[in-house]
């Protein structure tokens, strides 16, 4: 049937669910899985497919490969900055939440940081599952108000004159940071460079400049 689109009704359903479901998360999930499978609403094989995809195939290694290619191939870098959705599709990484992807580039004067304050939106197809801190209240509350304090907790210290560009991705655009290539990596090939790229650098909570 169709949804009611009624806020009060779903709020009340949530209150009932809160009282009817087991309080312990693992038991709650187990009870619901068993019901949904028995009811015929989900196929256990589909569940396994989802879980495995983000365990084995899809993860931040994809984003790292994108970044490394942008570092070594200036044409690709230009395409990535112009249309990141197309650029990652070119590498075979099109998928969930990559349809309106934007790459934002760190420079000597600008550092980028990505958050979703309203619900934790994230570019799954190229970064995989979001880390727990990205989804946590603390990061969502603080990243827009106190980005320097947040970065300091991640060990990233910027000059006071460096501008932080925060991207609060509350619409359907998704953002990935293109970090600066570390100094002293001139001889490295794309594969070796990709190994230097951390997931946090692509969110903006890591700084690769000093690592090599």
């Amino acid at each position, binding site marked *: 049937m*169709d949804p009611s*689109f*009624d*806020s009060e009704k*779903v709020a009340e*359903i*949530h209150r009932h*669910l*809160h009282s009817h479901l087991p309080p312990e*998360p*693992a038991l*709650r*999930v187990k009870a619901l899985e068993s*019901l949904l499978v*028995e*009811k015929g*609403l*989900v*196929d256990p*094989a*589909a569940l*396994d497919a*989802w*879980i495995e*995809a983000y*365990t084995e195939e*899809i993860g931040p290694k994809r984003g790292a490969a994108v970044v490394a290619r942008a570092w070594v191939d200036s044409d690709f870098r230009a395409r990535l900055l112009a249309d990141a959705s197309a650029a990652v599709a070119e590498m075979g990484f*099109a*998928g*969930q939440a*990559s349809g*309106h992807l934007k790459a934002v580039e760190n420079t000597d004067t600008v550092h980028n940081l990505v*958050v979703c*304050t*309203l*619900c934790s939106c994230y570019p799954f*197809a190229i970064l*995989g*599952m979001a*880390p727990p*801190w990205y989804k946590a*209240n*603390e990061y969502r*509350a603080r*990243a827009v*108000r106190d*980005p*320097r304090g*947040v970065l300091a907790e*991640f060990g990233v210290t910027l000059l006071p004159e460096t501008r*932080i*560009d*925060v991207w*609060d*991705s*509350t*619409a*359907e*655009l998704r953002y990935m940071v293109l970090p600066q290539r570390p100094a002293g990596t001139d001889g490295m090939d794309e594969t070796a460079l990709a190994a230097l790229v951390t997931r*946090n650098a692509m969110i903006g909570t890591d700084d690769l400049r000093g690592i090599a």
Partner: protein
Amino acid sequence: MDGVHDLGGKEGFGPIDRAHEDDPYHTEADARAYALCVSMRAERAYPVDWFRHTRENMDPVDYLTRPYFDQWLQTAIAMAIDAGDLSMVEVATGKPDSLARTPAPMSPADVQAMLTTPASFEREVSEAPAFAPGARVRTASHGHPGHTRLPAYARGAAGEIVAHRGAHLMPDDGARGIDRPEHLYTVAFARGDLFPEAAGSPDRIHLDLWESYLAAI
């Protein structure tokens, strides 16, 4: 909706806990909850903003304390009950009254297709965009009951259009079941214009905002 989900700029939250940051799922239950939610939801093609709004309507303390995918799963269950695809009695007893009336559930092949096919939220509209990059705009000073994607911290604030992103489905309407595209812009705000203690900071906060959230200054 002025709910606890609207966390941006809220003070009183402490240090960031980086535990499990490199595990795709940090518990088995977390993985199962994720998979259950996406297996149920996508099949029905409910608007994503109805999902978001249904999540926002969970008990505020549950919202702030329960594991992330555990929240997603309760949201998917609430949506299924709301739409009549599942009953509260079935959830409470753990026993189905009847088999689902829907066609076969999502298959592994469906999953594979979803994993490789990006969704697009862009639509054609006949109206020209009202704002061009460089334009100064002020955001609406209020939200409204129901879903919206204009966070409270950026209401009534002056900013600058940095890009027009085409017309995207309007989330406030999507959460009411209405498919209506509207021009979408990336807007930059001086951090100091949003948070008084940041006056003079070079930092900018960017938000992707729909045309009806904005007025020319």
